[in-house]
């Protein structure tokens, strides 16, 4: 009995020691999590009423709102949701940081960039943001991509490459940039050199002697194994790569597409493919009798549902969503239920030699002109070195080379 009691006392002491937490540390983070503008009649100035509110991913420090090209913008009441306890400051016209109070009006006229500084609750950390309101400008639909405009990402310690687009493509590429899984790969393989990432430029190796793009399916190393994401397909698409979800819900991390006011009818690209040795499943077990395939697709989808909510395709439904009205894709085998069929006899036709491929869009529904002009459809252009890479299956060592991509739109619209 006394043994039991002393055991209890001792355990109680230990538990008490464990439970006696000291004061909670102050928050060290200093993010803008959500930005919203307040308009009397948002639908008159913007394309969708939800366009007044933007959720800001942790890696983003520049927020732009798109208004119709005839909208006249002056001072707009603005609300920021920042990390609990953090203090937001707005840079005044004379360059002073002044505490920003939610709901106060900020002058966004003439597309001026307003600068914000967020200081954490513990005052030890700060972040700087830019917010701007931009006018939509009419643009041509046809686009070309030659992957010549690349640089090492300055915001990621120049660990990997990023690609910008130019011309009218800027409108359909968030931040005017191609997106890919490189930021996620950096998390798992910090030792990788820039040209060891899944998406890299290859100067002088395109079919025309200029730079081309190489997408490679790479092993993610020990950290990839730790979270059972053992390979990373090289990828390239327009939209957002939300690194926050790269581990939690990888399919959700790739958010595809941006609004596009033209009807795309065709995509062409110069392609070359070297197949990796062994197709592996999610647990890295070799799957005999299956070879890996590259993928290229263009998707046109309705970006608003019947209730007026935003529709955002991600890795879960990029090729299967009911909101897709037009699709062009490299040919693959499919099962009777429409799911992807893994085989050893692919029909994509991409070989080790450069060839130009042209894929026509197949529409299940004709786009509505008015919806189109009101940014109601989104366009996705996507490439992957492993067509099952979103499910972490494929052949490490697959190399998919891409250059001179052209998107052709219907000229009779």
């Amino acid at each position, binding site marked *: 009995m006394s043994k039991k009691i002393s055991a209890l006392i001792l355990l109680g002491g230990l538990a008490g020691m464990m439970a006696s937490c000291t004061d909670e*540390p102050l928050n060290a983070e200093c993010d803008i999590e959500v930005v919203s503008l307040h308009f009397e009649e948002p639908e008159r100035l913007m394309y969708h009423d939800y366009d007044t509110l933007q959720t800001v991913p*942790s890696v983003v420090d520049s927020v732009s709102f798109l208004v119709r090209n005839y909208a006249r913008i002056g001072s707009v009441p603005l609300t920021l949701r920042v990390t609990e306890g953090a203090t937001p400051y707005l840079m005044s016209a004379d360059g002073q940081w002044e505490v920003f109070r939610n709901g106060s009006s900020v002058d966004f006229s003439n597309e001026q960039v307003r600068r914000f500084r967020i200081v*954490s609750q513990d005052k030890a*950390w700060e972040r700087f943001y830019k917010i701007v309101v931009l006018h939509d400008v009419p643009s041509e639909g046809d686009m070309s991509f030659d992957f010549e405009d690349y640089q090492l990402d300055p915001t990621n310690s120049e660990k990997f490459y990023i690609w910008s687009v130019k011309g009218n493509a800027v409108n359909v590429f968030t931040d005017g940039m191609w997106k890919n899984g490189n930021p996620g790969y950096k*998390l*798992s393989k910090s*030792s990788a050199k820039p040209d060891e990432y899944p998406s890299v430029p290859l100067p002088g190796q395109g079919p025309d002697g200029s730079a081309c793009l190489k997408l490679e399916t790479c092993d993610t*190393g020990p*950290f990839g194994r730790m979270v059972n994401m053992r390979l990373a397909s090289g990828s390239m698409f327009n939209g957002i790569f939300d*690194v926050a979800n790269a581990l939690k819900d990888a399919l959700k991390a790739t958010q595809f597409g941006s609004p596009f006011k033209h009807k795309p009818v065709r995509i062409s690209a110069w392609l070359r493919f070297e197949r990796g040795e062994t197709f592996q499943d999610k647990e890295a077990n070799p799957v005999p009798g299956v070879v890996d395939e590259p993928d290229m697709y263009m998707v046109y989808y309705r970006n608003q549902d019947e209730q007026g909510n935003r529709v955002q395709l991600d890795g879960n439904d990029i090729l299967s969503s009911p909101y897709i009205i037009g699709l062009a894709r490299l040919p693959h085998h499919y099962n009777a239920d429409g799911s992807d069929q893994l085989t050893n006899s692919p029909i994509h036709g991409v070989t080790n030699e450069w060839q130009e491929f042209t894929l026509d869009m197949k529409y299940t529904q004709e786009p509505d002109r008015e919806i189109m002009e009101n940014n109601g459809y989104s366009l996705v252009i996507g490439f992957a070195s492993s067509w099952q890479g979103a499910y972490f299956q494929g052949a490490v060592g697959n190399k998919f080379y891409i250059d001179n991509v052209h998107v052709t739109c219907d000229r009779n619209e």
Partner: protein
Amino acid sequence: MNNIRPIFALLFLLLTFSAHAEDRWTEWGPTSRESNAGVIARVGYTIGGTTPIPLPAEIRRMNGFKPKGGVTFGADAYKMLSRRWGFSAGWHFFYEGFHTSANVKNYRMSLTMEGNTMGGYFTGCDVTNTDMWGVTIPILATLRLSPRWNLSFGPYVSFYFWQNFSGEVYDNTDGIGYLRVDTPTGEKVNMSRNNPATYDFSENMRPWNAGLEVCFDLKVMKHLNAFGSLDWGLSNIMDPDFDAVAFKMYPIYATFGVAYRY
């Protein structure tokens, strides 16, 4: 004169009592009267944990603390130098382990595997499992508090045959679980219990530990003791160059059991 009588009575009482007590000191003393030495073979149940001391502010709440029922068996040789004072030394084989789940905030951690480093500030739920097999060698001074109660106190050193320190990080019950990469302003990477990030620092554990032991022995029968002891580790369980966790951790384990005394 009348006043003296009770004092004599008291003295007499005291003398008889101490004479009786002297018998008890002998009766419960070492079995071997010549050497005043002997052995104690112990077997016991070990519980406890491995913890930073004091608990850092980054650890907000213990969701669960579950010692894994451990076991100790071994033997001590002892020698009494006087009626009250002696010393002992021995070896105790043990298995001890624990499981904890804690909510943490801005918990600085970093992992290095095969030349790749991932680290930063984690907020969420951290689950840890520890297992250690080894042998403890205590060298203790013994004080007989009374004929039947012994208190032993002194340093010990443990050597581990096998160690495990592994766990998982994921979201807490409020759904919050994320790493800010490198600094609190770095990328936010969410973690989920559906796909937790696991860690295993077993390779980074120090193969030995040193600390202080205190042990109470109660002589229940002629050859049977009940005992309770506490081993308080004073050296970090991790290698000195290990920096994946920002603080040092110490093993604190208690053992309750019975012993054969000769």
